Every structure is written in structure tokens, then in C-alpha cells.
């Protein structure tokens, strides 16, 4: 048995910050954000020479490859071939030619890589063209890509000023 002759001094308690809960939460948030983020979905690289048509539609962009009409050529973003980087003349895809076969092959490669659960709900294509493009060219490109395997074509437009 110990005896204490002096009055017991109060122990000085240091206030420690409880960081465990905060670290738990932030770890979870980081994991979910990393898992839930899809990079590059809404990236649209529009040719600087194009002036997009304006629309009042408020629909957002979907994840889809693009077909871009630049001048009298069409450029497919899903193409891996350097030979098709500059696009294929529209006259070739309607009239036939080496560009048409090459582009069709690239489209088939692209569509073949899409997982079945994604392609099952329909394969989309975004069409980008200048507002002054003739309807005949737009129709020919849409027809070509529809026949090549794309189920729906989405027309990309800029939001009209004052429509928001």
C-alpha cells in the first residue's frame, strides 16, 4: 500500500484530434471517385475551321465516337489507321473507292471492340459538321455510317445564346 502525503496533482490531459474517422471517410471518397470517374467521355475535338450549328436542345453529349465533316472529307475518330487520319472524301464513301473500304474496315474494328453489354443497347455516333454543310453531304455520311453498323446518329450543335 502506497501512501501519498502531498495532494494529488491533476494530470494534464492533452487534447488529441481524432483523425481516424476523417481518414476513413476520405479514403472511401477517394476510392469511389477513382472508380466512378470515366476519363475523356465528353471530350470533343472539333476542327477549328468548323462553325457548329446552333440549337435550343438541352440534351447533353453522349459517349460516342465522332464523324466529322471537314470540307468534302469525313474524319472518323475511332480510326486507328494513320492513312485515314486526314479523312476520306465523301465522294469516295458514296461512289466507292479505296477510302470507303478502309473506313469500313476501321468501323468494323471499332465496333468489334465494343463490349456486348454496351453495344446491346445500340451503338451511337456523334456527327460534327459546319452549319453551312449541304444536306446532301450530311445525308450521305449518315447513311454510310448507319449502313456500316451504327444504330443512332447524334447531331452535335452548339447551345443557342439565350436558350438556357
Amino acid at each position, binding site marked *: 500500500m502506497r501512501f501519498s502525503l502531498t495532494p494529488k496533482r491533476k494530470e494534464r490531459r492533452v487534447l488529441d484530434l481524432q483523425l481516424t474517422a476523417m481518414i476513413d471517410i476520405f479514403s472511401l471518397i477517394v476510392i469511389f471517385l477513382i472508380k466512378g470517374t470515366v476519363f475523356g467521355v465528353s471530350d470533343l475535338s472539333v476542327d477549328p475551321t468548323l462553325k457548329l450549328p446552333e440549337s435550343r436542345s438541352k440534351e447533353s453529349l453522349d459517349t460516342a465516337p465522332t464523324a466529322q465533316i471537314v470540307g468534302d472529307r469525313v474524319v472518323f475518330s475511332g480510326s486507328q489507321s494513320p492513312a485515314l487520319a486526314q479523312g476520306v472524301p465523301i465522294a469516295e464513301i458514296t461512289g466507292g473507292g479505296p477510302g470507303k473500304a478502309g473506313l469500313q474496315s476501321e468501323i468494323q474494328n471499332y465496333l468489334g471492340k465494343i463490349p456486348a453489354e454496351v453495344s446491346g443497347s445500340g451503338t451511337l455516333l456523334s456527327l460534327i459538321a459546319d452549319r453551312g454543310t449541304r*444536306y*446532301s453531304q450530311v445525308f450521305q455520311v449518315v447513311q454510310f455510317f448507319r449502313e456500316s453498323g451504327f444504330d443512332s446518329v447524334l447531331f452535335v450543335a452548339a447551345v443557342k445564346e439565350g436558350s438556357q
Partner: protein
Amino acid sequence: MDDFFEKPERKHIRELNLVPVIDMFTTVIFFLLLSTSFYAFTKLTLPPSKVSVNTDPLTPPPLSTKLVIGEAQAQSSLLTVKLSWVGESPGEERIEVSEAELETKVREMVGRFHEKFPAERTVQLGMSSGVRYQSLILAMDGAREKLHDIVLISPEEAATRLATAAAATDGSSSKGASR
């Protein structure tokens, strides 16, 4: 005097620190709720393939609604817009507008059509070859509010339909339901 003798140590019951666990599960629930998508799966059983004849007199025939747009004249900035349909009471409407008012006029035109045929949802949209892409977008903006399903038709077919309409107008043979 009380402090003279040391107090006997109290029996200390260890408490489980549940705060971080609750924090964590609250966060998990929040994220799960936000990230969950609910799908309704349905099963469609198709009948065996056979030829059937629709004898229901209440089912109206398809209207085959067509909206075609073309240049009014060679040197003119005006556009000819024609909305036509077939069915039990076929008809057509034809106007000339500038591109600036194309969307509004198409919306009005489609609105009048929708009053007559509220169940119709599909329109075939076509333009003559020289019409600008901007006009297509404007026409779609005007039509989509009432006619959601838009199918593009070829410029050749659109030009033919515009030409036949013009010939019919010149011959003063307007159809019964035209406005």
C-alpha cells in the same frame, strides 16, 4: 484527508469506439444510393411467326408524316416547308419562310398537326440537297417537341415531294385537308 489514501482503481470497462465505423457506413450508404442504377427487366414473348390481317376498324392506318424543306427559288433566301401526311384524311400544309424563322414556323405547323393527330409521334424529315445543315437542326428543334421520332429521308426524295407539291399547287388541286 480523503487524498491521504490512494483511491482504489475503478474497474475500467473498455468501450468499443463505434464512431469511425458509423462514419464509414454512413458514407458507404450515401455512395451506394447515389451510384445505384435501377433497371426494370421485362420479358417479351413473341408469338410464332405468321401472316395476320388487321381487321380492327378502330386502328388508324399509318400517317407517314413527311416534313420536307427546300429552297423556294434559285436566287431567294426563302425556304419552302411542306408538311404532308396520308391516311384516312390526308392533307398537307406548305409555307415559305426565312431560315431565321424556320424553327418557329415548323413548331407552329407541327403543333397544328399534333392537334389533329395527337397520337402520332414519327416524322420523316428531308431537305433538298443544297439546304444548309443549320436548317436541318432548326427544323429538328421545331419538330421534336411533338414528333419525337425523326427519320431522315434522302434529298432526292425530298426534292421529288417538293416538286410534286408545287405542280399540284400550280394545277390548283389542293388536297382536302390542306390549310
